């Protein structure tokens, strides 16, 4: 008899992702991913002025506010065929890069490391040994014995007082936790340091965006940052160097601490490079335009089918013709009216709730398909499409990671091993290291352009009569984000956001083909159905983000894992 595990943040408001798995023997045989909150929030912008849509769309989510603002202005600019000035392009890029640096650091340490790192073993670690081990793995300056001892004392403090606080619900002592106490201590010391370094990246977003969360500096047609090297109130050299100082402070942490920790984790959990591949079709759009025309990009885009990473099709523009036509959303298993796949420009969001039906409708997430196929998006997709094309920066950091993992684990790993649960964490660290280099490069682009005397930041939009369509894309921390707009007589007549988590958390489609989360869980081990740590490891590796749209406080608090034998 299979055991059914239902992991559901039961609370109506806070929890939005529900995972159901059936376990036979000791591995997952069936899986369902369900979003339990209606995402019809796009309807709120219908009939509004397209120039203000980004103010609304960045409230879709609490974590990725910036990315929804950016995709929105890009979509309207695409519909108007409106080019933005080079300064605007580079300022936007710096915001996107720094937002992603912050996001990746927080995801790895604060939101997923404790799936792998058993902090309750830390009190018995040898702090001096931990420090020398850490120093042998990397040049990071935060690996002193003093640093390790301080982190250990912190754990001893709350473990001794019985006040576990935010660590109260971890699966400590779980048999799938396999790291030596010293490695756990190193990871936790960096966990604490991460809280500081991610903040520097976020400060860059705040300085350029005027405010964070919810940046205020965008406009359809450019940005609202006044550039004047002679003014104290505008973006001047002093401010630009402040930005550079912040960015430069984050880079060593990313390249020496985070990158190494992700590789070490992969080396010490080799089995997790064989589980969790999931859907092996990958999609990434190009991003970080190098010029005003967006004719070249620093992050390549492309499509890989069936895990064939030696045969990637390149996407050349942010809204490639192929991409425009390939995307459709299937509603067969989603709680919306209609079954036929809909192109986002024709997309409708009319709720039709049934109960959770294993073989019927079971999620508020639509099922996006690319030429009819489910696609995995996110850092792994980005790294694989770049690697397949021989993109130098992608290759540099991917090869460095593979070398590191092979050396620490004493077992040769290849780029193919990245198609796994652990591979998604490694790919995120690779991407973060790439972005840390690009943060400097795009700062230089901006300064070079301003030095030429160019201070333009805005090209005013003109709205035509009649109907025009546009799509704005952004290769966000969690993957390909696209906003699709239809403008009629200067007003929004349709708006659909196809977000990264929609691709990855997609339910089955009209042919019964499951989405990436669902596929990735099949064959996943589960030692103890009461403590489905392994399921969480695979789900968390995607960096799911669907819970942010609503944040009311529920004072009751309820447990969430339920297990029943079928």
């Amino acid at each position, binding site marked *: 008899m299979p055991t059914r595990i239902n992991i559901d943040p039961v609370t109506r408001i806070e929890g939005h992702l529900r995972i159901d798995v059936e376990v036979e023997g000791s591995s997952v045989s069936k899986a369902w991913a369900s979003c339990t909150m209606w995402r019809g929030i796009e*309807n709120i912008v*219908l009939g509004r002025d397209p120039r203000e849509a980004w103010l609304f769309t960045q409230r879709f989510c609490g974590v990725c506010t910036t990315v929804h603002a950016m995709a929105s202005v890009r979509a309207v600019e695409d519909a108007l065929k409106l080019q933005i000035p080079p300064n605007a392009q580079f300022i936007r890029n710096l915001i996107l890069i720094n937002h992603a640096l912050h996001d990746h650091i927080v995801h790895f340490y604060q939101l997923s490391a404790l799936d792998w790192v058993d902090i309750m073993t830390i009190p018995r670690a040898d702090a001096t040994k931990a420090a020398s081990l850490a120093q042998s793995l990397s040049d990071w300056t935060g690996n002193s014995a003093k640093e390790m001892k301080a982190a250990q004392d912190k754990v001893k403090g709350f473990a001794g007082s019985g006040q576990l606080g935010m660590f109260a619900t971890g699966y400590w002592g779980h048999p799938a936790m396999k790291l030596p106490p010293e490695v756990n201590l190193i990871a936790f010391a960096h966990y604490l340091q991460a809280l500081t370094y991610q903040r520097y990246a976020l400060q860059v977003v705040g300085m350029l965006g005027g405010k964070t969360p919810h940046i205020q500096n965008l406009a359809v047609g450019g940005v609202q940052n006044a550039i004047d090297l002679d003014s104290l109130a505008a973006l001047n050299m002093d401010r630009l160097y402040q930005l550079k100082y912040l960015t430069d402070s984050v880079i060593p942490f990313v390249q020496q601490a985070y990158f190494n920790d992700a590789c070490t984790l992969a080396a010490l959990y080799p089995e997790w490079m064989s589980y969790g591949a999931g859907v092996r079709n990958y999609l990434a759009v190009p991003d970080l335009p190098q010029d005003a025309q967006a004719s070249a990009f620093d992050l390549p885009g492309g499509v890989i089918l069936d895990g064939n990473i030696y045969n990637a099709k390149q996407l050349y523009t942010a809204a490639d013709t192929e991409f425009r036509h390939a995307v459709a959303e299937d509603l067969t298993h989603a709680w919306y009216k209609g079954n036929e796949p809909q192109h986002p420009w024709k997309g409708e969001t009319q709720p039709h709730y049934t109960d959770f039906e294993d073989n019927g409708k079971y999620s508020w997430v639509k099922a996006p398909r690319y030429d009819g196929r489910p696609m995995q998006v996110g850092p792994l997709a980005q790294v694989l499409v770049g690697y397949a094309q021989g993109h130098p920066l992608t290759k540099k950091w991917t090869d460095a990671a593979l070398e590191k993992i092979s050396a620490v684990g004493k077992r040769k790993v290849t780029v193919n091993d990245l198609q796994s649960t652990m591979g998604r964490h490694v790919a995120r660290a690779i991407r973060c290291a790439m972005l840390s280099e690009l943060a400097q490069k795009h700062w230089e682009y901006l300064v070079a352009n301003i030095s030429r005397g160019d201070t333009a930041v805005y090209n005013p939009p003109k709205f035509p009569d009649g109907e025009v369509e546009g799509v704005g894309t952004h290769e966000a921390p969690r993957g390909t984000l696209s906003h699709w707009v239809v403008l009629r007589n200067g007003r929004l007549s349709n708006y659909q956001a196809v977000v990264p988590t929609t691709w990855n958390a997609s339910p089955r489609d009209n042919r019964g083909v499951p989405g990436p989360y669902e596929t990735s869980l099949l064959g996943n081990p589960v030692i103890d159905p009461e403590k489905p740590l392994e399921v969480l490891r695979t789900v968390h590796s995607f960096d799911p983000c669907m819970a942010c749209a609503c944040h009311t406080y529920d004072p009751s608090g309820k447990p969430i894992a339920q297990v029943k034998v079928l």
Partner: protein
Amino acid sequence: MSIDEPVAPVLVAGIGNLLLGDDGFGPQAIARLQAEYEFPSEVELIDIGTPALDFVDYLAGRRVVVLLDALACGGEPGEVLTYDREQLRQRLPGMRLSAHQPCLDETLFAAETAGIGLQEVTLIGVVAESLDVGTELSPAVGHAMPQALQLVCDIISRQGVEVRRREKPLPIEAWWATKPAAAS
């Protein structure tokens, strides 16, 4: 050059989603406070939206934190309830499935772990009536607004910080209050 610039010791943060009816209570309360009261430089008001763990960054360097939020619990819509740090601590954070649903409690624990010592934390909550898509508060929650704002001012005044009501309120900066055009 210093990276961490000094911040105001008193933070008033409005939490919630402006697009989901009464969930917008927190951010809307911030806009009202800014329009109706004058605060000295010791007080910072932030419309924080629906933050995750990045909220911790806004707590660094504070002494007193006042949170305004909608409540999803039983009770009469519009009822105003306050919770202090101890009461918030009583509630253990639930296990996270999505990595981005750290609840408020977890944010406060994370702040402690990061070595941020807050002397006083108060959550002023209003029981929500409707969380459906929309930018307007329900009448019940709207009526509760003045009471909640008064509570904020009382907490700040108890710190010996003077809060003055403006004789003539400023216009409320509310991009969300614009009306969409009828479909043409």
